[in-house]
């Protein structure tokens, strides 16, 4: 077979390897670049000072990103908390209850809708969601409808198709024989799902959630438009939820903002911006990698 055959030099192979190297090069560059460009700020603030510093004042050369990490985690957690139950519920209904013909229609619709650009979600956030949130929060004297909560809810809607369609894949991926065996014993749909299907589909569903989380962590434009972009917002105590209903800043909304342009020319400020990129890349890569591992586990079981 060709896949294992001896190979002498060929132009085709050389081209293939060359282009692949180019692709690796570009993407390897990216990691190296953020690392290298951010060096000054790690030196200036110290690793812990940069990661856990609570103050970001670029005019005073103070660069601590904790409030942005907090903002990113807050909006992503809200998004996942919203999208997970609805997404898995919808996936179960689609995979286990809907007849095949309808299932295909639902899947297709959801997958198409997953393609709505984030700037459009952002627009809807600006035109509708933030006003609704403002009204909703009235009893708490909100300053504005642009809050971490608003961004979280918007993100939740955005990652819903991802979570739903990948969970559905995981559930459908469970061999029909398990379903037949369980139903053949007299179990109801619900019991079959709970005892038979879910334990087997679990890695795939967790992977779906992680991929949704990865998308939420990295989403920029929609968050940018409704998050309020207020620096240095942190909860007073660990369990205080107040900052959730106030404007905040995330890693991505900072990167998408005007400071990115402003920073070039001031090496330290620029390094602080590149550092944000590095931190974001690390978090997202970790989550994605974990999701990939789990998704892979599922595939190898089939």
């Amino acid at each position: 077979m060709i896949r294992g055959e001896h190979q002498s030099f060929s132009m085709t192979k050389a081209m293939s390897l060359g282009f692949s190297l180019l692709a690796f090069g570009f993407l390897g560059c990216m990691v190296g670049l953020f690392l290298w460009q951010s060096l000054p700020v790690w030196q200036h603030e110290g690793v812990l000072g940069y990661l856990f510093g609570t103050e970001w004042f670029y005019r005073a050369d103070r660069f601590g990103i904790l409030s942005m990490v907090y903002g990113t985690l807050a909006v992503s957690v809200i998004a996942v908390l919203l999208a997970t139950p609805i997404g898995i519920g919808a996936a179960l209904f689609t995979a286990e209850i809907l007849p095949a013909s309808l299932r295909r229609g639902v899947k297709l619709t959801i997958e198409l809708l997953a393609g709505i650009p984030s700037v459009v979600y952002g627009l809807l956030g600006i035109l509708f969601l933030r006003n609704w949130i403002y009204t909703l929060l009235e009893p708490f004297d909100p300053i504005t409808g642009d809050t971490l909560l608003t961004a979280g809810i918007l993100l939740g809607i955005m990652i819903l198709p991802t979570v739903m369609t990948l969970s559905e894949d995981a559930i459908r991926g469970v061999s029909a024989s398990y379903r037949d065996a369980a139903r053949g014993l007299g179990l109801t749909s619900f019991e079959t799902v709970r005892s038979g299907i879910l334990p087997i589909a679990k890695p795939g569903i967790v992977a779906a959630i992680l991929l949704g989380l990865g998308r939420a962590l990295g989403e920029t434009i929609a968050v940018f438009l409704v998050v309020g972009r207020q620096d240095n917002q942190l909860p007073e105590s660990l369990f205080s939820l107040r900052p959730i209903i106030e404007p905040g800043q995330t890693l991505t909304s900072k990167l998408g903002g005007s400071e990115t342009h402003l920073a070039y020319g001031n090496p330290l400020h620029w390094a602080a911006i590149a550092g944000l990129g590095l931190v974001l890349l690390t978090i997202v890569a970790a989550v994605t990698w974990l999701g990939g591992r789990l998704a892979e586990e599922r595939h190898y079981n089939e």
Partner: protein
Amino acid sequence: MMRHWSNALFFLITGACTFVGLGLLLAILAAITFKGLSSLSWDFLFKPMKEAGASGGVFYNIIGTVILIGTALIVSSPLAFALALLQQVYLKKRSLRRALTLFLYLINGIPSILFGLFGLTVFVQFFDWGKSWLTGGIVLGLMILPTMAVAISERIHAIPQAYFETAAGLGLRPAQIVWSIFIPYSLNGWLSGSLLGLARAAGETAPIMFTATVFSGATVPDGVQESPVLSLPYHIFILAQESYNPQMIPNLWASAFVLVAMVMVLSLFSLPWRKRAFEAKR
């Protein structure tokens, strides 16, 4: 009896989830369609913007977006084929092939803003291109690389063993087999991967806002350096921040509609080539 109640509850709750999820997303689509169509006209599609977006159309924004995704397609196609061939043909070790899969998977997860930041640093600043359509195309091309490479790779994987055994039996050299079997028979994978990737690229704002696109003052680029284009997503992004001005609203909806329509058309065209994904499942 408990069992039946819990089962009924299960139907009810999951059904409600489906209704809410699907309903929400369809409502979004419906809102864009109705609001957008009511402000859409031929002039809007074929006239350039006037009065900072308050009137006129989005002609050059559409052109700009098409230039960007066209460039992305050209940049990404050879790289995607190369990676797919590497994965399916040239890499011998299973562990290496899996490492490449994981690599593509990770790239697919990289937030798009980071592609933008990368393009800004390398092309806009180091190469001193300034904002350029080419940077935007390269950055978007890299972004959609995994989608395309995986689609091609899967298709190569699905080519029946007999095809290349026959080709090898005829005495074709490996390179000739690549050109006569692997590439032609994976073209539909490339097509579906491209359409899906481009659908995503067309709607992205974050990678191009620092690297390739401006809000006004650009038409068709005539070089590389300092030659930005207009684009639909960036247009919407800027206008959205001006949406307190009611004059902007009709044009905003119409622009959003044009962008969503473009994305949907690209994804819909990929469907016939994606159908296999459903056929494969029981």
